[in-house]
C-alpha cells in the first residue's frame, strides 16, 4: 500500500500538471509527450486494450474491415500525436462506432493506453539501421529491379503494392521478411487468378477484387478485366505472391540497404 502511494502520488501530480498544460498550451503539451510510457505502462495499456478495444480493433490491433475499426499498428489517420490519441480515447469519434473510454477512467490509465497504441508503430528516430537508404534506392531501381513492379512517388510498375509510404506500415524486420519470403502474409489484393470467361480466352492477373457474383483482375499488361462468375468457364486462385524471393539475388548487406531505403519511405511532413 505504502509503495503504491509512493508511486502514484508523483504521477498524479505530473498528470495534473500535464492536463493543465494541455488546457492552456496545447502545443507545448504535445511536445511534453507522454509521461506514462515505460515498459510497465505499455504493458498495462496493452491489457486494457485487449479487454476494452480488441473486440473491434482486433487482439493484435490490426483492425477489422467488418466493424470498420482501423488498423492501429501504423500511421494513424486521425491522430498525429499522443495528445491526438488521448483526445480520441477521451471523446470518441462522433458519428462512428468509436466510443470514448469510461468517463471515470483515471487519466493515468488513459495515458498508459496511449503509450501502448503509440508503441504499435515504429518511431524511425529510435531505429538504427546498418544499411544506407541511398544505396538501397540504387538497388530498388537497379539490381533489384523493384521498380518494374512497385511504384514510389508515382514512378514504377503496377504489379505490386505502391511503396511510397511503406515505412509507415512496415518495420525493418517485416521488410526483411517481405524481401526474403514474399509468400508470407500476402494480401488478397495481390493473389493471382487464372480465369477463362465466356469468350473462351484464358487470362491471368492480379486479384483486384472478388465478390459473391463477380471478379476483377489486372493482367501483366495492366489491362483491367471484369467477369460475372455465372459466365466463368474455369477459375483458379493462387494465394501466393507473384514477387520472387531475393534471398539468393541480393547479399545480406544489400538487403540491409534496401530495407533502409524502404523504411525511409514515408509521408513528408
Amino acid at each position: 500500500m505504502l509503495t503504491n502511494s509512493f508511486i502514484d502520488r508523483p504521477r498524479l501530480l505530473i498528470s495534473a500538471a500535464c492536463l493543465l498544460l494541455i488546457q492552456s498550451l496545447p502545443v507545448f503539451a504535445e511536445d511534453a509527450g507522454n509521461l506514462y510510457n515505460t515498459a510497465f505502462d505499455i504493458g498495462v495499456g496493452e491489457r486494457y486494450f485487449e479487454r476494452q478495444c480488441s473486440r473491434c480493433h482486433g487482439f493484435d490491433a490490426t483492425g477489422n474491415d467488418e466493424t470498420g475499426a482501423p488498423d492501429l499498428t501504423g500511421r494513424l489517420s486521425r491522430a498525429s500525436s499522443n495528445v491526438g490519441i488521448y483526445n480520441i480515447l477521451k471523446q470518441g469519434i462522433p458519428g462512428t462506432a468509436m466510443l470514448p473510454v469510461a468517463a471515470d477512467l483515471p487519466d493515468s490509465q488513459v495515458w498508459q493506453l496511449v503509450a501502448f497504441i503509440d508503441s504499435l508503430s515504429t518511431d524511425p528516430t529510435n531505429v538504427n539501421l546498418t544499411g544506407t537508404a541511398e544505396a538501397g534506392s540504387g538497388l530498388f531501381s537497379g539490381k533489384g529491379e523493384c521498380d518494374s513492379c512497385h511504384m514510389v512517388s508515382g514512378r514504377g510498375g503496377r504489379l505490386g503494392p505502391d511503396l511510397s509510404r511503406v515505412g509507415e506500415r512496415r518495420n525493418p524486420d517485416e521488410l526483411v521478411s517481405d524481401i526474403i519470403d514474399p509468400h508470407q502474409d500476402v494480401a488478397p489484393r495481390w493473389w493471382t487468378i487464372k480465369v477463362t470467361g465466356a469468350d473462351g480466352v484464358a487470362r491471368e492477373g492480379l486479384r483486384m477484387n472478388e465478390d459473391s457474383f463477380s471478379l476483377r483482375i489486372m493482367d501483366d499488361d495492366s489491362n483491367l478485366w471484369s467477369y460475372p462468375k455465372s459466365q466463368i468457364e474455369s477459375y483458379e486462385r493462387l494465394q501466393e505472391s507473384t514477387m520472387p524471393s531475393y534471398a539468393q539475388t541480393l547479399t545480406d548487406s544489400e538487403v540491409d540497404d534496401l530495407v533502409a531505403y524502404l523504411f525511409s519511405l514515408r509521408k513528408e511532413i
Partner: protein
Amino acid sequence: MRQLPMKQIIILLAAIGFSMPSIGQEDPFQTVITPAFSPITWERLVNAEEEPENWLMYSGTLDSQRYSQLDQINTSNVGELELQWAYQIPVIDRAETVPLVVDGIMFITEAPSNLVAVDAATGRQYWRYDHEMPDDLRICCGRNNRGVAILGETLFMSTLDAHLVAIDARTGNVLWDKEVADHEAGYSKTAAPLIVKDKVVTGIAGGEFGIRGFIDAYDAVTGELAWRTYAIPGEGEPGNDTWSGDSWKTGGAATWITGSYDAEANLIYWGTGNPGPDWNGDVRLGDNLYSDSALALNGDTGELEWYFQFTPHDVHDYDSIQVPILADIPFEGRTRKVMMWANRNAFFYTIDRETGEFLVGKPYASQTWAQGLDVNGRPIRVPGMAPTYEGIMVSPPIVGATNWYSPGYSKDTGLFYVTSFDGEQEFFKRDEDYEEGERFTGGGGRYTQPMDAFHSSIRAINPATADIEWEFPIQPRSSGGITTTAGGLLFSGSADGYFFALDAATGEELWHISLGRRVHAAPMTYSVDDKQYVTMASGNVVYTFALRD
C-alpha cells in the same frame, strides 16, 4: 388559438389544390389516402401467416420461419425486380433492421435507437422517434437495433441504454419508457421484442460485461414488469451449482435476439448467450447453466419448462443467440413438432419442441472443437481446444459458424436455410477481475489469415437428417438473414453488398443486385394494393424492390 385570416386560408387551399395530382394520373401516393391501419390484435399475430401483405413481427410469424405466402414474385419473374424506393438512415452506422409493415405503413428502426414510420409503397416519412441517449453507453459490438414489435396501435422498441419504449404507431409519441436494467452496469438492448398475448417479451444484451442475463415480460398497456426469468439460476435454484463460487452472479448468458412462440404448447422459445468471462472458463467451472441454451418458458408465467444446452462450459463465445425456427416436419415416419437450430458452435440441431428431446444433429460448417454430439446432443469435446495465454487455433472463430442473423425455413421445400461461415481464429485467454460496467471477457481472438481466405455460403439443411442438401457460396464473412416465399424463392444478402434471390429448392441463383454496402440485416416481403415488395437493408440504406409494372 390564433386563427388564420380568410385570405391566407384561400391561398393555402389554392396551393394544396395546385399540388394535387389530377384524377387518373399515375401517382404512388394515391395508395396512402387512407393510411389508417386496423389495430393488431393478438389473434392477428397468431395468424400472421394468413395476412402475408403484412410483416407483423421481426421473424414474420411466431414460429419464426420467415416464410411468406406471397408468390407474385416467383422463380419465373424474379429477374424483373426493380428498385421502387430507398430510404437513407440519417445516423451513419450499420443497419441491422428488419422493418415491420402494417397495412401499408412500414416501421424501420435505425442506429442507435431511433424509429421511423414511412409509407411502405414510397418510403416517404410519416413520423420519426429519436431516442434520447446517455453518453456513457456500455455496448460491445456496435450501435445496433434490429426492429420493433407491435400490439394494438403500439410499437415496442429496445434501446441501447437498456430501456423498453412503447410508441404510438400513428404519431411516434412515447406512451411509456421503462428502464429494463442499468446501462452503467453493462446492460443494453438491441433486439426486437416478441408479443405473447398481452405482454411484451424481451431479452437483454451485455454478455461481455459480466451481467446476469434474463428474459422479461411487460404489460403492453402499462409497462409494468409481469415476470422475469433469469438465464442463470439464483442461489438455491436448480442449476446454480453448475457455476463455481459466485461466478453465476457475473456469468453473462445474455438474451440478445428475439425468440419464438408456440401458441398450442403455450411455450416461448429463447436463446441464451455465452457465459462470462467469454474466454477464461477457469473462474466459472461447471456447465454454466443456462448459458448457450435454448429455453422453453411458460407463455403466461415465464417459468422454465425445459432447456437444451448446446455448449456446456463454453470458452469460445459460442452464443446460442439464434432465432429458433418452429415447424412440424416428417421425422422417422411420423410428424414431429420440432425446433430447428443452426448454432454458432457449427452444429445443426433438430429438437422436439414440446419436450426438449434431442432428435438429430450434425456439423453444418467447419469446426475443430468437438468430435461430435452424443445421443443426447451434448458435444464430445476435442481435448486441449480451450483458449490459452499463448493462443490456440480453433474453428469456428469467435463470430461463429453463424450468429444472430436470421435463418429461414420453407414450407414448400421442407429445408432449413442458414448463412454459414467456415473460418478459424487464434483464441487467447487472459485473467481479469470483474468491475461493474467494464468489459469482462477474459481474452479475445485473432485471425491469422485474411478474411478472403475463408468461406461463407447459404446452406440448405434437411432437418430430418441434419444433412446439407445444397450450398451457395458467397463472400466471407456474410451475415445476412434469410427469407423464403411461396414463390419458390430464397432472399438473402452478402458481406459484399449484394441482395440476391436463389431457387429455394435447388440453390440456383436467379437474381442479384449490388447494393454497394455490407448486408447486416434480413430481408422481408409484403404487399400494398396487391403489389408485392421485398425489402433489404444494406449499409445504411433500406432498399425496396418490386416487379416492373
